[in-house]
């Protein structure tokens, strides 16, 4: 999997799942991502930071009942990179 359309940042299983989870939605809370991926807070934070560093996702903070909540959404750059990545995956499968 070394094709140029492949995004190594996205292709890692957990980060691919994060992008896939965020793709059909406007924004998702940290708790929900953690539950769906079934990973620890620290593991998820690490992957989220990597995606944030390349500008693929952004976070917003909100307070609900006095508790701080972190919401994440795919940026336009992240969405485009993810879609290209999916297209590349589909083309590999269709070549079979």
């Amino acid at each position: 999997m070394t094709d140029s359309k492949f995004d190594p940042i996205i292709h890692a299983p957990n980060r691919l799942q994060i992008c896939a989870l965020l793709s059909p939605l406007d924004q998702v809370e940290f708790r929900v991502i953690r539950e769906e991926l079934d990973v620890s807070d620290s593991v998820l934070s690490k992957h989220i930071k990597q995606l944030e560093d390349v500008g693929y996702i952004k976070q917003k903070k909100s307070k609900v009942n006095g508790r701080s909540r972190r919401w994440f959404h795919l940026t336009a750059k992240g969405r485009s990179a993810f879609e290209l990545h999916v297209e590349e995956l589909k083309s590999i499968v269709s070549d079979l």
Partner: protein
Amino acid sequence: MTEKKQIQSKEAQEALDSINEMKYAGLKRVLPTPIWLGAILGILIGTQIALLGAEIRTYNTILIVLIVVMVIAIISKTQSAGVAERILFSKRTIIISFICIIPLYFLAIISGQYLNYHFGYNWAPFVIGSFFTIGIWSLMIGAHRAYNKRLNTSRS
């Protein structure tokens, strides 16, 4: 086909399966506003338009409070779900819609008052209010259908 290609295809298929699974899981988490909540909101707004059109202001404050409570309930439901559905309309479309809806709301009230007092159509404000109720309810049903369609597409 080389062995390397087969491994690539298998890996790619697994990645695609994982993507579809997560998309479906995300959409399943979205709790669309229940139709009954939309119906109540529609009835409240329609009633307010009808009563203001008929110059009956006694229940206006109560109706405003109830509408605000309903809106807060809808927003807090989204917050508690931990996911917010992606709005497929552009920001421009949403802003234009709001710019159109607000004058339409006042126009509905003024039209009701005008038809009521100048032509004696006592039923006019109530008909206008009913149109608003049906409109809001239809929007809710449309949103539900769109959500179910997306969920079914994602599942398949």
